[in-house]
């Protein structure tokens, strides 16, 4: 029987916690523009980042506030439905709702696809 070829180690697999592209790798450092920006662009970048963080926080707080409330969803094709909002998934791709009022009747439990939703409104 032939001897199998020896191997130093197995190929490294993906890191479960990140998407990779290590910024400290030699290739990244050599090919990417310097991460120390000039002072003027730095302050506008920071300002933009701050605003983005603020908007994101407001969005997440809105989702929390919406939980359990009766929400009106305006969707594509002039669809307007009411339902009790449960939760969103982590990527905000689907919204879990209960007692969804549809022209075909009330759906006890349903998932709404976020890409179909244009707007949602509710009483605070």
């Amino acid at each position, binding site marked *: *029987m*032939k*001897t*199998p*070829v*020896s*191997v*130093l*180690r*197995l*190929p*490294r*697999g*993906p*890191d479960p916690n990140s*998407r*990779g*592209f*290590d*910024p400290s*790798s*030699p*290739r*990244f450092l*050599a*090919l*990417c523009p310097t991460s120390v920006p000039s002072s003027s662009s730095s302050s506008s970048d920071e300002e933009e980042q701050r605003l983005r963080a603020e908007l994101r926080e407001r969005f997440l707080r809105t989702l929390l506030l919406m939980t359990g409330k009766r929400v009106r969803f305006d969707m594509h094709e002039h669809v307007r439905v009411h339902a009790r909002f449960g939760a969103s998934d982590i990527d905000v791709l689907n919204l879990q709702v209960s007692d969804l009022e549809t022209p075909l009747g009330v759906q006890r439990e349903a998932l709404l696809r976020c890409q179909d939703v244009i707007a949602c409104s509710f009483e605070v």
Partner: protein
Amino acid sequence: MAMRQTPLTCSGHTRPVVDLAFSGITPYGYFLISACKDGKPMLRQGDTGDWIGTFLGHKGAVWGATLNNEATKAATAAADFTAKVWDAVTGDEVLTLAHKHIVKSVNFTQDSNCLLTGGNDKVLRIYDLSKPEAEPQEIAGHTSAIKKALWCNNDQQILSAADDKTVRLWDKNTKEAVKTLSFDASVSSMEYIPDGEILVITYGRTIAFYKAHSLDLIKTVDAPASIHSASLHPEKDFFVAGGDDFKLYKYDYTTKEEMESYKGHFGPIHCVRFSPDGELYASGSEDGTLRLWQTAVGKTYGLWKCVLPEELSSENSEVLYCPPAEIKA
């Protein structure tokens, strides 16, 4: 002493791997991108299979993936009706190109300035990446979904293979079909070798080699099983092929003789490609893995180490992983 091939398995994908591509040789080595039905194409170091990063953003199965020569850009084609261009160093999405149907194939020109796409809407599109908002040039003619589209002849011509069982050669400027090849079966894969202008096409159990300029047939070889993909070694001494029977076949290109066959995958092989230096080839399978195979079995290269019998029992040897001997049924 003859040695047994030890394939290196790259795990990480959770669904079938349907396409893979190597970059050219860069100062940082060469790289490999894999397209997967899980929607998350991955970039790996080409000679070791080590994962570098995952391109996140597609919302559907990724059917095609490619890298530019310098491995600074990547492009992917997906079932979410988009083709995306990525920065292959940072992993960031650079461009999303909306299409009207599933996109199956993407290919950069040599200078990375243009991207060719093809898919289920049967139209070839050429995008100028320096003017991404501009409408792409379109080439229509195929009567079924396009499976693969490649630049050839110094990026002056385009080769496309479609489910209408034809392979067509188009002039980029006139957008006319210069030549059409018709087959009895759907073409499963196509590879273009610029150095030597050879086109490798697979259909049914056949691996066929054509001259890329004229589409004149050079030779055909029949395999024991239905073949989904084949690749010709850069020096054109061997080619490898894989398909429905889960095995990888290695043939002598000159004599057309089968030299070796390798088991290892647990599902049909969808794609196989030689690395740019010809030292290894990579296969992607329905089983969700990529495997790297040595061209010269036993040679020290990448993670493979040529070990002399004395070294195996020596206490001073480096930590070596010796795969357990398999018992043949």
